[in-house]
């Protein structure tokens, strides 16, 4: 057996930390353009909101993680703002696929006895400061060494870097622009029922494929939105989470930054129409003791319409090559068999490098997404399950969710969560 073979990862022997940790609090700022606040200020608001959501005070949080791409603040500043004394913190480099990995790492540092409860934040002025689309500050960075092999060719933005995978999937499997556009249609439908979403307008397939080409095969409306915002997720042991006011979202398994071979330049190792989920699923499902058929809601990362499709396919929600069909047959829409990104995700709600999709699934498992449904005398929403525009976005009987995080075709992270059953 090869040392690098995924099958060597013994995911069947132990149950690892399945069902022992939970997300007990989530919080965010608004998703907007022109925050007129520093990332430090945004982070402080998001963590503060998550602490309120978890019913926690500064004394209850003693660990902190953050991630960024030279566009954010650091944990010690934010902890100071909030009166939190840290027993552990780490600020890591990274974008998409960081959050599921950091949730797993939070479980690890708590298990190691380093701290008790971890707040993970991502704060970014992704529109008004360091734009995540790559214009401005990001394209002004000097081009040195290894980067010459890409950036000197005008191969820099996320869309440009991923396009060879997207086109090759169309070539290998006959995937059509109209099929993939259905992802935007679904997510925009969901966003229209999300008062927080930056874009609430519903789109049609025709509108997506008739919007201007950014780089083939991506139309403007295949691409995510750039926004300013901060988001926070609090992770702790399940027994502690059960003392919090909201029902815990129980973590069943995590995969962190799982890579295809040749992570230095993943296009060297094909098929290039296959993404990291092909490897990550060998860890995700056995560790969770569940499979794709058990999942009620997915959060497949939508930096682009294509990334949602490719991951759902490679994590096994459909047969290899059938991703285009899967995302366009109604399955991923609210009211369908397995809705994806019910908040509107990165395409519509706001761009957070994955955080808002985990926050949304946490709320789905609580049975308490923040839509426009009427609020009862007990303060809880009375979900109508009427998914027409401006209505409900709570999925009926949401028991199990899967988050599929994307860094690039060659790297991904994932997490399965379930409702708490004491």
């Amino acid at each position, binding site marked *: 057996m090869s040392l690098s073979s995924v099958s060597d990862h013994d995911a069947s022997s132990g149950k690892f930390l399945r069902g022992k940790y939970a997300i007990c609090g989530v919080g965010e700022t608004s998703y907007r353009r022109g925050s007129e606040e520093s990332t430090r200020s945004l982070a402080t608001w998001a963590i503060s909101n998550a602490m309120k959501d978890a019913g926690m005070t500064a004394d209850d949080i003693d660990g902190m993680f953050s991630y960024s791409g030279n566009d954010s603040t650091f944990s010690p500043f934010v902890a100071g703002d909030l009166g939190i004394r840290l027993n552990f913190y780490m600020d890591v480099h990274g974008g998409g696929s960081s959050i599921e990995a950091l949730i797993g790492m939070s479980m690890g540092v708590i298990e190691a006895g380093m701290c008790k409860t971890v707040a993970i934040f991502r704060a970014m002025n992704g529109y008004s400061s360091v734009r995540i689309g790559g214009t401005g500050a990001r394209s002004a960075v*000097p081009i040195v060494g290894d980067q010459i092999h890409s950036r000197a060719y005008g191969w820099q933005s996320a869309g440009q870097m991923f396009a060879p995978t997207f086109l090759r999937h169309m070539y290998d499997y006959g995937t059509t*622009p109209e099929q993939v556009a259905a992802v935007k249609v679904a997510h925009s439908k969901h966003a229209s029922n999300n008062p927080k979403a930056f874009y609430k307008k519903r789109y049609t397939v025709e509108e997506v494929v008739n919007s201007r080409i950014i780089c083939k095969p991506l139309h403007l409306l295949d691409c995510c939105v750039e926004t300013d915002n901060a988001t926070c997720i609090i992770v702790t042991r399940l027994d502690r989470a059960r003392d919090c006011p909201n029902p815990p979202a129980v973590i069943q398994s995590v995969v962190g930054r799982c890579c295809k071979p040749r992570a*230095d330049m993943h296009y060297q190792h*094909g098929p290039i129409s296959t993404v990291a989920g092909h490897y990550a699923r060998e860890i995700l499902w056995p560790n969770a003791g569940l499979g794709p058929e058990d999942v009620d809601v997915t959060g497949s990362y939508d930096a682009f319409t294509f990334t949602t499709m490719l991951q759902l396919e490679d994590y096994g929600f459909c047969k290899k090559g059938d991703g285009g069909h899967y995302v366009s047959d109604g399955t991923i829409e609210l009211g369908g068999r397995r809705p994806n990104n019910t908040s509107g995700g990165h395409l519509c709600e706001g761009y957070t490098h994955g955080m808002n999709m985990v926050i949304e699934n946490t709320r789905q498992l609580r049975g308490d997404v923040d839509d426009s449904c009427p609020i009862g005398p007990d303060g809880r929403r009375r979900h109508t399950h009427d998914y027409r525009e401006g209505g409900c976005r709570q999925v009926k009987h949401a028991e199990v969710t899967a988050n599929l995080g994307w860094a690039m075709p060659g790297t991904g992270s994932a997490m399965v969560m379930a409702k708490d059953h004491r």
Partner: protein
Amino acid sequence: MPIQGDYMGMTLTIEDLDGENRDFFRYCARRDFRLQRGKQSGLLRYPPTTACPWTSDRESDWVPVEGKGTVHSYVEVHHPIQPAFRDKVPYMIILADLDIQKGAPTEHEALRVAGNLMTADGEFAPPEMIKRVGIGTRVRMVFVDVTDEFALPHWTIDEDAEQPDKPWRYAQE
């Protein structure tokens, strides 16, 4: 001294300690495309690395490689991100499978070398030339100088090669 040059208004730098990139781009400046071949594995690799991806062996030789291949996939950019490319759109980035070592050491591996689609003279390809290129197009390497000891490899249509009847292109023109 680092090797540094201006290319289309972008400053490209190869640091002193970056021996692999220094060698790679210096050979390109001599119109001599070379890749590292691992001493133990005997396998070529791209882009330059400090060790062999198959054996972790740090010993390698720079071996001359024929700059011919087939388009495996591509990017066709219509909305520029970097200021240097603002007046180049539409432009194409090609990922070409080199003929040598294609499908080795395993079926789906190949030396997939990046470059822009250029004319044979090393100018950015005009739109009518871009429309002739898709997955399956046979391409050959051309070089564009950055300094006298630093050139970038690029791709152009191999007009002498047998071409597919219709290379695969994204449906919307």
